[in-house]
């Protein structure tokens, strides 16, 4: 079992409470004034050269946001956030969506190196630097290794700094760029779909995001195209006191397929930082979107100081017939996680899936789950959620499954399992099951347990150390979900789980 061996090595090589992405990059930044006002929103919009309608959209969102109250229903406990003590826009100076890596600060490139953005990606980054032959490298990569190619959009604080493989993707008619670029280049697509899944005033954080979002990724897969490589966005919060508000919009036109990966890290800071993203997915007839996240924001130190507050609204709309949206998430970071990737199953025969592993340790608090809203006929959904709580953390699964009156033959299967490691943590399950149609078949089951003494004894008697044994058992426990991840993430996830549980035994 090589993967398990890797987990063990990873555990050995890193000390307790060591967050390996916790460095900062010293880079000159341009920031909007601290706090939130119409002026700041105008500043962001102007900085991005946005069309007038977009500015109106943002200002409208800001007006609505002022009338809203922070949601309090989640099982999370944190001090009140001062929304006026945050920088809403911070960009590496001189960057405005660079066209080539010549324009990218070498310091940034070193950052990506440290983050271990896939090794082949570094080759590509180097390749792109040779301005005269970028496409050749793309072809090479395409020809020799059709599998495992990843196109990356990297977002640093508020701005997308680099997007790779654009040319090759363009050959297939695929648009993959930062959302600010999309607003300039493809305004009609953005205007048609932006806010159509997560309306402006959907919830407090989504509304805030609508007003101040600074960047994110935009993907459009044309009719009948199967995206030839994984698309990936890498988010990094770097500056002190900045919030990150990115917005991702993915449209899969009829009969298309795309797999999208998202990763996130942040430096170690004593203060809490805010991250409030909105992700919208739209799948038209027969289209399929697979969205995978490895969320590894800084979780705070061992005393619960610092860490990212992660308030994210993710929603997919299976708008067309036979469409499919699949969410896979691995949540190991953030001091606070408030995140419910959802599927609206509007098209007949559409399918939604949600696979989640949420690991919490230290003083982390996770309130995460999904919503499966069945609207069309013969829709089906599947939820597999594995929560692992250790240390003094609280880990909550909160999920909704609903079938509306016209959702004939809606089917759902939900399984949420929780594992408790230690006696100071909590694991909670809050499912909402609403059936307005008699032909709906909903099944829900949940279990909570600890690692059984028998299992531990079995492992220990074969010479494994306690922590190795826990990592082994936990990896087995979450296997159902890990199997859903693309290959690149699978190994990384197993490593992450090893790290997050460290120090939880004994």
């Amino acid at each position, binding site marked *: 079992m090589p993967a398990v061996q890797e987990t063990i090595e990873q555990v050995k090589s890193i000390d307790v409470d060591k967050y390996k992405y916790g460095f900062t990059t010293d880079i000159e930044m341009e920031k909007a004034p601290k706090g939130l006002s119409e002026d700041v929103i105008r500043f962001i919009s102007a900085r991005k050269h946005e069309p007038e309608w977009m500015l109106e959209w943002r200002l409208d969102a800001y007006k609505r946001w*002022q009338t809203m109250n922070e949601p309090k229903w989640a099982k999370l406990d944190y001090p009140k956030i001062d929304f006026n003590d945050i920088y809403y826009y911070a960009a590496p100076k001189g960057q405005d969506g660079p066209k080539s890596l010549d324009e990218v600060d070498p310091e940034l490139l070193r950052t990506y190196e440290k983050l271990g953005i896939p090794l082949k990606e570094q080759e590509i980054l180097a390749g792109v630097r040779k301005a005269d032959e970028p496409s050749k490298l793309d072809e090479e990569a395409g020809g020799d290794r059709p599998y495992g190619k990843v196109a990356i959009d990297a977002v640093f604080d508020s701005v997308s700094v680099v997007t790779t493989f654009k040319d090759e993707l363009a050959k297939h008619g695929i648009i993959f760029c930062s959302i600010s670029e999309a607003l300039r280049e493809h305004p009609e697509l953005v205007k048609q779909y932006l806010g159509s899944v997560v309306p402006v005033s959907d919830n407090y954080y989504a509304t805030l995001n609508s007003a101040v979002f600074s960047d994110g990724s935009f993907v459009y897969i044309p009719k009948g195209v199967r995206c030839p490589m994984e698309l990936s966005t890498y988010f990094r919060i770097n500056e002190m006191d900045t919030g990150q508000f990115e917005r991702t919009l993915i449209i899969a036109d009829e009969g298309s397929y795309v797999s999208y990966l998202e990763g996130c890290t942040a430096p170690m800071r004593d203060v809490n930082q805010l991250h409030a993203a909105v992700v919208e997915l739209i799948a038209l007839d027969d289209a399929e979107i697979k969205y995978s996240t490895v969320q590894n924001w800084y979780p705070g130190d061992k005393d619960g100081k610092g860490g990212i507050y992660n308030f994210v609204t993710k929603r997919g709309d299976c708008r067309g017939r036979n469409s499919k949206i699949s969410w896979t998430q691995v949540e190991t970071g953030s001091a606070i996680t408030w995140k419910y990737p959802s599927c609206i199953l509007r098209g007949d025969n559409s399918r939604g899936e949600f696979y989640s592993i949420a690991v919490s340790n230290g003083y982390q608090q996770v309130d995460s789950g999904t919503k499966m809203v069945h609207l069309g006929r013969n829709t089906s959904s599947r939820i597999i959620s594995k929560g692992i709580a250790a240390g003094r953390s609280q880990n909550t699964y909160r999920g909704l499954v609903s079938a509306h009156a016209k959702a004939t033959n809606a089917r759902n299967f939900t399984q949420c399992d*929780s594992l408790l490691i230690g*006696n100071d943590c*909590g694991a909670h*399950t*809050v*499912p909402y099951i*609403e059936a307005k149609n008699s032909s709906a078949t909903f099944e829900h089951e949940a*279990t*909570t347990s600890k690692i059984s003494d028998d299992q531990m004894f079995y492992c220990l008697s074969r010479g494994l150390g306690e922590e190795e044994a826990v990592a082994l058992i936990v990896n087995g426990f979450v296997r159902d979900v890990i199997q859903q991840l693309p290959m690149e993430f699978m190994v990384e996830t197993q490593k992450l789980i090893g790290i997050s549980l460290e120090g939880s035994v004994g």
Partner: protein
Amino acid sequence: MNVQVQRVETPAELKLASQFAERKDALVGADTLGAGRAAAFARFEAVGLPHRRVEEFKYTDMRARLREVADAGETQVTLPDAQGGVRVTSLAEALASDGAAIAERIAERFTGFDSPLLDLNEAFASAGAVIDIAAGANVAEPVRAGFAHPAGKRGDSVALYSVGSGASVTLIEKAGSADGGAQGGHVSHVDVADGAKVTFIRHVDAGAQGVHSGGLAVTVGANATFDLLLVVSTGELVRTDIGLRFVGGDAVANLRGLHLAGSTRHVDTTLFVDHAEPGCVSRELFKSVLDDRARSVFQGKILVRQKAQKTDGKMMAQALMLSDDAEADSKPELEIYADDVQCGHGSTTGRVDDTLLFYLMARGIPKREATRMLVSAFAGEVFDDLDEAVAEEFSAVAEEWLERHLA
């Protein structure tokens, strides 16, 4: 920065407030219960009728559903027959002889969550019964009490049960009134002492137009066994708040419920089980059979506190829908702070299985009869562990309901 929304009182809330102001000094035991009633009403007034933004009332919007409050009336209490080991007094008598202790017991209600409806009951309850089972008593016949709310009027009642250590008893109560659309509520407090064995049955029969908001607050001592059966057979709107707390270790609670609802009825049972002590076992099984446009809600929460190691909790909510327009909502929650526990919950929703129906029909059983057999088997599971006579009595209620709805 944010706009604060001022709560506007509904006509129903205003009427309740004026009723309370008018009646509070005339209610039974005003001298002893007065302070508790005022406090309860103040708690109610602070939040008003619960609406869907209140988590525990997410599926039962009382503000929207209770538009008009009926005038106050008298609740008819039927006290149990005398029997060895059973001491029965009416609320009025008990207040006259031992007012302070009764007031204390009423104030100690445990449900685990704030329920403005139970506060309302506490503020108005003026009829009721106090039933004590002596320690070690083995009560042969079921102890039956009735709390009939006045037709077309509003009434509230309360019952205090205490079961002494090692005693064994079956308590049966019927709440609501079958005719005339009464409004009101009935709340029972059940204290089960160490080693006692109690079967508690509540049948809510609130009539076609009735609005019933009931409550059940139970504490279970060490090594005791508490079996509950809640049957809701009629009532336009029936809401039952159940709170159960283990106050001693190694106790067992078997909580079962059956909602039978047709027409546009709305039945909601919200349950909170507090595993405060180690080694306790709780089993929850709540079933709904729904016809026409009826709606059933089950919300259940199992809390396992940090010290409650070796807890074993299993919760199941199942709904069977006989018509396309029925609605079933369930929310089975787990909140766990101890690591050596086994907890699980399940929830299923669906209609009568076509394969099973086909199987029976292929053997010459007409469709209607086959459906009746399947539904009756589904519902019957909640009667499984009861004494034969009692099981028959309540399965007859279910059978009678089925006969009407499958006709």
